[in-house]
């Protein structure tokens, strides 16, 4: 039986308050984990659940945690609540509707990995949500779920909320660390990976809000149950954020593996004003675009990789026939050119260059060669940059330009 996991109680009034949350069985998972389970057992369970990261790359959470070395250094957890990927708006729902579910996940994760300080790095614009998190955190302290000797287990944990200052790149995990350390948010060269050398040079786990929010459910209901909510290799549900030209844009929590077509036409009510579908960006703006013919596809990590796209943050942007693909390309190239941190050459100059060409085409001054230039420059960025933003820019640019070449050519 498949059901809603994360958004089940979202309709409930005042769910964000600890009393209401507890009435729904809140903090039972924490009690279970801290009182009845050993850290190794929790790790085993999360590994078995095949919970893959919800932030973009889909790396299995349990495996990531197991990379944290056993050292005398302090270890940290950073919850990535930067939610900067265009089209993505799921984490804000979790945090504003059910902040305690996230806190529970943080407590259990920290207990499992041996962490005593956790940070929620939240997008700067989410000011009200940050306040709500702060309130939830103080409630959790008052109720003995945070602070010293939590539930008499001998385990200590503090949680801090840190607001970002408005750069997409600070959602990239190592730039996030730099920013959290008070520096300019630019990605670090990897290796070393944050699991061994992270925040203040100490081992650090970084996970997305949605990833961490699943933990309490895995602990309460078990890995086997969790896998059944999704796919064997991709456990649980995803909160799909559907935006663009659909009748009912919004978030839809559905099992991993739900078809894209169903999400658009069943769950989101189909196309707005009866327009024809032209294209879909299936996983946040960084995901390569799919044409209307390509939407008969299961929405899970592996299926999308097979279709040369990616599930990313599961943000589905629906584009109708009326929308000019040049406009889409303009938005994409402007975004990445603006958000490139500027550290490495191909991304810094390549994205700006492509953006200048696309702008020129949009001004009616395009030339035939421009389309090939865009393809050449984007493929010179792809695979050659310091952080994944370079690829995140090149992939959609390449797919849009290749798949809609004819339409773009009509503008030059």
């Amino acid at each position, binding site marked *: 039986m498949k059901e809603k996991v994360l958004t089940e109680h979202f309709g409930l009034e005042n769910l964000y308050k600890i009393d209401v949350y507890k009435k729904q069985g809140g903090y039972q998972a924490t009690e279970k984990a801290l009182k009845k389970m050993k850290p190794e057992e929790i790790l085993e369970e999360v590994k078995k659940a095949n919970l893959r990261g919800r932030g973009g790359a889909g790396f299995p959470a349990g495996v990531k945690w197991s990379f944290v070395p056993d050292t005398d250094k302090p270890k940290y957890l950073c919850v990535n609540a930067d939610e900067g990927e265009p089209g993505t708006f799921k984490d804000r729902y979790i945090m504003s509707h059910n902040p305690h579910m996230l806190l529970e996940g943080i407590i259990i994760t920290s207990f499992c990995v041996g962490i005593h300080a956790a940070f929620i790095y939240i997008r700067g614009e989410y000011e009200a949500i940050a306040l709500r998190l702060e309130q939830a955190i103080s409630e959790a302290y008052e109720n003995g779920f945070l602070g010293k000797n939590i539930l008499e287990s001998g385990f200590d944990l503090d949680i801090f909320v840190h607001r970002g200052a408005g750069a997409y*790149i600070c959602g990239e995990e190592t730039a996030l660390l730099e920013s959290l350390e008070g520096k*300019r948010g630019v990605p670090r*060269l990897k290796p070393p990976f944050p699991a061994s050398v992270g925040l203040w040079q100490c081992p650090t786990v970084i996970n997305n809000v949605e990833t961490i929010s699943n933990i309490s459910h895995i602990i309460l209901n078990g890995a086997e149950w969790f896998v059944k909510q999704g796919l064997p290799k991709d456990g649980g549900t995803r909160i799909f954020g559907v935006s663009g030209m659909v009748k009912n844009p919004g978030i839809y929590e559905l099992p991993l593996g739900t078809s894209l077509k169903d999400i658009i036409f069943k769950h989101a009510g189909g196309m707005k004003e009866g327009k024809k579908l032209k294209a879909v960006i299936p996983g946040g703006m960084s995901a390569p675009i799919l044409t209307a013919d390509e939407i008969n596809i299961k929405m899970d990590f592996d299926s999308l990789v097979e279709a040369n796209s990616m599930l990313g943050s599961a943000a589905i942007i629906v584009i109708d026939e009326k929308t000019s693909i040049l406009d889409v390309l303009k938005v994409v190239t402007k975004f990445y050119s*603006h958000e490139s941190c*500027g550290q*490495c*050459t191909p991304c810094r100059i390549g994205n700006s260059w492509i953006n200048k060409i696309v702008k020129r085409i949009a001004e009616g001054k395009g030339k035939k060669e421009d389309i090939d230039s865009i393809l050449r420059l984007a493929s010179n960025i792809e*695979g050659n940059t310091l952080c994944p933003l370079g690829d995140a820019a090149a992939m959609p640019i390449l797919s849009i330009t290749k798949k809609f070449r004819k339409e773009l050519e009509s503008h030059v």
Partner: protein
Amino acid sequence: MQEKANEMIKIFIDKEPVEAEQGTTVLKAAERAGIHIPHLCYHPAFPPEGSCRMCLVEIEGFPKLELACSTVVKDEMKISAKSERVVKARKAVLEFLLAEHPLDCPICDKAGDCKLQDYYDEYGLFESQFKEAKEKREKKLKIGKSLILDQERCVLCTRCVRFLKEVTTTQDLGVFHRGVHSSVNIYEGAAVENNYSGNLAEICPVGAITDEDFRFKTRSWFLKEGESICPLCSRGCNILIEYHPGFPRFEVPKRVYRIKARENPEVNDFWVCDRGRYGYSYLDEHRADKIIMNKIEGENVLTWENISEYLGEKIKRLSSAKKTSGIALILHTWLSNEELFLLHKIFKDDLKVEKIFFADLPQGEADGYLLTSETSPNRRGAQEIGFDIKPVDLDALASGTDFLLAFGPFLSGLFSPKDLKAALNTVKRKVLFSSYTHELNSLFDIVLPVALIAEKEGSLTNVEGKVQGFQPALEPPGESLPEWKVLSDLGKELGIDSKFYSELPSPEAILIEMGKKIPFFKKKND
């Protein structure tokens, strides 16, 4: 770095087997094997930065191109450093860099010396496809004492930023803004003001940071370079002296245009301080180039051929009259180990001269890094040789000195001209060895022009006791000769222990003799 030294593994670069130190990077291993991999952000003084993407190479088993600057070698690793894919990626990076780069080479100080120019020459030579408007940036920002930043030429390698973070820890420069608008700048109201600022112009791989001291004065391809040691403090930083060959020439008013750091991990790493870098005018200004004879009896015309005979004769006369107590020496610690050793041997050991003084520049202030408070390069050497470094005592000098041999121009800075003159007037015969035309010279009977450290061969002992050899980087001007030559001739002339002096054709030979007598100077097997 905790690299296990000496454990070697085998890797392959372009199919050629190459020995590499365990734990080293592909780039360093390649460099060691004489294979150059282009790089801009990598600098051996810092951990890899990985941002310029110039050093991409292909490594078997890796789907993407990898960075040579940061990838650690593994046994049997197979690397392609110039495959088609690699060359294409390098061209791509160059194309990106040049797209937003000004075409300044004809008026850029770095031309001829610029990595971007070199790499374009090697991999590029393509037509520009960039048809858009270039970003406008600051082209002449004064960022420090003598540094000018041209943001348009900057390739954002952040070497400068990292230098100020990791070496001087002053953090005077930062990267501002984002994306294509990223630029290096100073913070508001601040400037690069530390004693190492000049290193920035040197480590900037392009002409983005230039030095006002050098700017527009000459072109780098006119210059030759010679290796030397900085004599301006007792650290003994290894340097390169860049000079105009063919000096003197009408259009070229000076020889030396620039001092650069020469790598030595045991002394100065990759750096020199600003005092050493900019204080090179002493090499060209007010140089003495002729023997001066102010007062000399008879028909004698002194040349370097007969000088030791002349001096020897005076000394022998005093010595046979058992009057060596009438001999006085004023030395300084810019003299090399070999010269000081000869002086000690001749005057202290053999002639038992008592009145030996030292006249140096006054002490300065150490900066906590390289610059020492000692303002001369070889005080430690003088001590190890056995000198008791006593300041000049004019009263002692003025009582019963028949013959004074003085070295260096520093005496005049220590006393008033009146006192000096009064004291020296009581000395019967006095000879000065100096590299400069200076008022002081008029107080001596004879002034012999001598070479500076940059112009001779020898060794110096730095503040930490490290003995460093040096070779002439420049020609000594005019008739100037190095002191060691005169001294070894003089030793021979005096005839005491003449066998010893007969086998000293070079400073190298003198140092070997020194090692036999003073264990400190015995060559350490390195």
